[in-house]
């Protein structure tokens, strides 16, 4: 009898928690969006998604990972919609049949942030390629995502344009954290290294130390986001209707207006451009 | 499992008892040493059998071999002329020098022994009450068994063993670490059990105790049976040199 009481107590505890748990399974109608840390961590999605859910009754569950992992997860069918920023990888995703069609959504821009001491002397530069050459020449520490994310891909493209072989400097002044944007910023601030980051993550980042924006405004720093419905012919479980509804809303007037209206500290971080082709190519 | 008729010891004895218990060509070796080497030993119904002998003579090992806790290297144990069959252990019980009590109440310890012995649930409360009364442990029935005093613990171990109404009860120096009063209580319980027809086989160091309780004595020396005689005869005139020396208080090696 005591044994039953004993086990019963334990089960009652868990059952009670189960009842008290949040509305985890409450919403029956939902889609999963595989997206990137820049959209989720900046607060953009938290800000704009409720309007969509209110209108359609569709809950949007966001898995925020690096672009590389987001695309991989979507390839596995673990999501209904892909919202990332690595155009060539996105086009490959569609070309291979994993996605239905790619739509432009918005763009933001990258900035190079660095310590106040500015060891490479690049502060105020508007030429990112020249600045990166200076960083390499000075051997000033640079923290890279090193995680195959959209930001990492953009950064590698810039090094290539600057003619710098970062593989040779890996472990020296060039340090690959292999982690997300926030973790890389934390590491960069910790070791006084320059970091290429999207502006949205940077503005909302809470651990800036004495870091500030060193390079901005270069056309090559623009960063295009695309949205793709995962192909229901490849993965029958994909909620094509609800997923497409989300894409239509995001690229339509309401979604575009919501994106434009999202600001942090008075700054607009994302610029909707669904109606037209990306303004600039990096 | 026992059948209903097997509950009362007298009934068993009358019907198809498991005694006599006999050992034939029993050998146990360990690390190159022969610990037990017994050509023949028969323990029959009757008064308590006392197993005596100096330290290291193999008394405790013999008890475990007979009870079936240890497998011999050679030889066999026979119960009423037959090799041990399944369930034979349920008709025996053993009390160890240091009582092993479950981490439960006094009453639950007895109930457990009855349960694993196959006594039906409906009969157990009465049997537990009888055992508690026998051991004078009623006030402590709900107390954690391991908080009892040393004497009470051994009393519980003994009435727990008796609760299943074994035909034969092995005891391995049950009073070795008890004071005289506790020892007397244990001896009284053993004597009563013997009087009710339970065969007692008991290892003891204490010649006084053997004299008080024993009907016959098995005297061991270096793994062999040196002497197996009537208790009166043993204490009056031991047959073996080792037993004479032991009783005289000499150091027997």
């Amino acid at each position, binding site marked *: 009898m005591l044994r039953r009481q004993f086990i019963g107590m334990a089960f009652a505890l868990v059952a009670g928690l189960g009842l008290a748990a*949040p509305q985890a399974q409450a919403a029956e109608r939902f889609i999963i969006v595989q997206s990137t840390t820049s959209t989720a961590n900046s607060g953009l999605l938290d800000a704009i998604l409720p309007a969509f859910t209110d209108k359609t009754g569709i809950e949007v569950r966001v898995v925020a990972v690096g672009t590389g992992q987001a695309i991989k997860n979507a390839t596995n069918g673990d999501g209904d919609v892909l919202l990332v920023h690595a155009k060539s990888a996105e086009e490959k995703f569609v070309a291979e049949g994993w996605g239905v069609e790619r739509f432009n959504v918005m763009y933001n821009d990258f900035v190079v942030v660095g310590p106040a001491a500015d060891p490479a002397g690049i502060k105020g530069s508007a030429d990112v390629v020249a600045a990166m050459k200076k960083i390499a020449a000075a051997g000033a520490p640079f923290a890279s995502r090193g995680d195959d994310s959209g930001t990492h891909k953009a950064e590698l493209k810039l090094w290539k344009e600057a003619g710098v072989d970062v593989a040779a400097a890996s472990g020296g002044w060039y340090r690959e954290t292999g982690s997300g944007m926030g973790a890389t910023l934390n590491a960069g601030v910790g070791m006084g290294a320059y970091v290429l980051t999207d502006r949205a993550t940077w503005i909302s980042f809470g651990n*800036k130390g004495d870091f500030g924006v060193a390079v901005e405004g270069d056309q090559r720093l623009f960063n295009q986001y695309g949205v793709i419905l995962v192909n229901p012919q490849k993965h029958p479980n994909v909620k094509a209707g609800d997923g497409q509804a989300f894409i239509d809303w995001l690229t339509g007037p309401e979604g575009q207006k919501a994106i434009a209206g999202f600001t942090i500290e008075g700054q607009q971080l994302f610029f909707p451009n669904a109606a037209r082709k990306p303004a600039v190519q990096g | 499992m026992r059948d209903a008729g097997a509950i009362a010891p007298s009934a068993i004895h009358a019907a198809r008892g498991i005694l006599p218990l006999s050992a034939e060509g029993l050998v146990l070796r360990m690390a190159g040493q022969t610990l037990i080497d017994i050509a023949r030993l028969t323990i029959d119904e009757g008064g308590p059998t006392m197993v005596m002998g100096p330290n290291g003579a193999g008394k405790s090992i013999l008890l475990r071999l007979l009870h079936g806790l240890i497998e011999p290297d050679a030889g066999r144990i026979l119960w009423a002329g037959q090799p041990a069959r399944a369930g034979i252990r349920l008709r025996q019980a053993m009390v160890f020098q240091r009582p092993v009590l479950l*981490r439960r109440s006094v009453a639950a310890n007895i109930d457990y022994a009855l349960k*694993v012995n196959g006594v039906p649930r409906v009969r157990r409360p009465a049997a537990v009450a009888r055992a508690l009364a026998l051991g004078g442990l009623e006030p402590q029935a709900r107390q954690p068994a391991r908080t009892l005093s040393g004497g009470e613990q051994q009393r519980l171990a003994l009435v727990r063993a008796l609760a299943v109404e074994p035909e034969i009860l092995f005891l391995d120096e049950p009073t070795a670490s008890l004071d005289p009063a506790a020892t007397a209580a244990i001896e009284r319980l053993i004597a009563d059990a013997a009087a009710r027809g339970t065969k007692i086989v008991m290892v003891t160091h204490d010649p006084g105790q053997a004299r008080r309780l024993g009907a016959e004595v098995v005297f061991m020396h270096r793994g062999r049976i040196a002497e197996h005689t009537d208790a009166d005869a043993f204490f009056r005139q031991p047959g073996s040199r080792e037993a004479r020396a032991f009783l005289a208080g000499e150091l027997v090696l």
Partner: protein
Amino acid sequence: MQDFTEPFSLALRLILAGDAELLGIVLLSLRVSLSAVLIAALIGMPLGAVLAVGRFPGRAALVVTVNALMGLPPVVVGLVIYLLLSNAGPLGVLQLLYTPTAMIIAQVVLVTPIIAALSRQVIEDLNGEYAEQLRSLGVSRVASVPTLLWDGRYSLMTAFLAGFGRAIAEVGAVIIVGGNINHVTRVMTTTIALETSKGNLALALALGIILVAIAIAVNAAVGLMRGSERQVAHA
């Protein structure tokens, strides 16, 4: 120099504010980890007991394996469970990925070896004391397992708590199979990871303090249960 007083006062303010969001996260953490540990205990304790009393070929190898699995990296477990539950994986049809159930599964895998290994040690010690008496009572090795588990229940609580400690503090596995989805699979540890990545170090640390406080509360609750149970059940 970092200011360590801010996280503490922030933690206190968060608790006092009784924020519904935070409460939801805390309850989900407890639900996932306690469920996982209970399931792991139902598997691990009998397994540990069988390893303790059993005499079968391969036992020694199994003991070494279970001991080694205590060090399973959570990320690896998360990855394996992800690959199994993914829509491209063999169990994709169950549609469990990015649900609390997936997180429970991952934690069960992580915690079961810990509970099994610690239980084996506990039961082996107890069996050393009980074995001869139980054989004498006619209880076979296999049949003695429930008795040993029951009589070892207070020592086994430590195994349970060790498992709980591992589960509640683990982030690598749940963030992969849960996806850290807000209001669905976001637990304490993934929230801490998220706030750290946002550079909100004080908030992350404050949440960490709350997590430790929860762990202490659970340990204390089990301690109390143990104490009152001991009085009633007679240790």
